């Protein structure tokens, strides 16, 4: 159950439309380290977490990633606002126009559609949390690459906000991993098997 807030987590502004950059930044919509994959990964892994605190953390961060996907969607939409088919073609994104017009679709920067292969759930809290930490690092670096690829200060500002959230999430997942490892060590429980001391 979710409560929907009718505002973005952070304002999304663009100085002027830029289809070329829309083609690149769409990877954070539906690419391997994008926000769709992040939200689904965390909202799915929460079921097999051994503590309520870990479940709550995955629910919170997974929900926030949905809000980030919404921000990226708003950004791609604004970057292509008013663009003609020729503009798409000039940006090397003619294929997107043919298939989706001004609609959005979950692809990476090379047009490869989103795949569940980008995410994992081993049902082992240490393996899953370690994957989550790696995912945050990969998303952080992708944002750094994207910030390098645009000159629009408004876009940089918004991407920097999302970049900082990845750093914060890494810290929180790391603290959660500390907790879980302690929890599992106390119970002498590994890989779901409990051994009485």
């Amino acid at each position, binding site marked *: 159950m979710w409560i929907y807030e009718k505002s973005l987590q*952070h304002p999304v502004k663009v100085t002027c439309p830029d289809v070329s950059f829309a083609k690149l930044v769409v990877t954070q919509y539906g690419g391997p380290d994008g926000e769709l994959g992040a939200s689904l990964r965390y909202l799915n892994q929460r079921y097999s977490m051994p503590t309520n605190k870990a479940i709550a953390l995955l629910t919170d961060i997974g929900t926030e990633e949905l809000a980030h996907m919404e921000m990226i969607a708003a950004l791609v939409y604004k970057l292509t606002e008013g663009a003609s088919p020729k503009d798409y073609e000039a940006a090397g994104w003619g294929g997107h126009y043919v298939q989706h017009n001004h609609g959005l679709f979950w692809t990476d920067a090379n047009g490869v559609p989103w795949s569940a292969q980008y995410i994992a759930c081993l049902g082992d809290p*240490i393996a899953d949390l*370690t994957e989550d*930490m790696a995912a945050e690092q990969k998303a*952080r670096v992708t*944002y*750094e690459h994207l*910030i*390098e690829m645009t000159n629009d200060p408004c876009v*940089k500002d918004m*991407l*920097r*906000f*999302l*970049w*900082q*959230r990845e*750093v*914060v999430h*890494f*810290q929180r*997942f*790391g*603290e959660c*991993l*500390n907790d879980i*490892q*302690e929890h599992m*060590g*106390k119970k002498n429980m590994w890989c779901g098997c409990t051994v009485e001391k």
Partner: protein
Amino acid sequence: MKRNVDNAQVEEKDEQLEEKDERVEEKDEQEEPERDSMNMWNTNNICNCQKTCAKMMLAHAYVPWQCYDEAFSPQEALKKGTLFPSLYGAYPIPR
């Protein structure tokens, strides 16, 4: 310790030892709870950052506990993406 020393000497030494003990006790009281540089384990549950962590094991990953010390104003935090100055700049900020 030699057994044939006179009583006075023994008493003096005992006094010195006692003084030393007192100093050690004082020092213990003043000292901060024992913790390593990474805040990873601590015997004193004062705040989350000083929380006891299971002893670190090889082939496990750990992140230092964050201490809740300073905070940005809510307006600044919403712009920056974090409430905590300690997390802002933990990685070089992309410009």
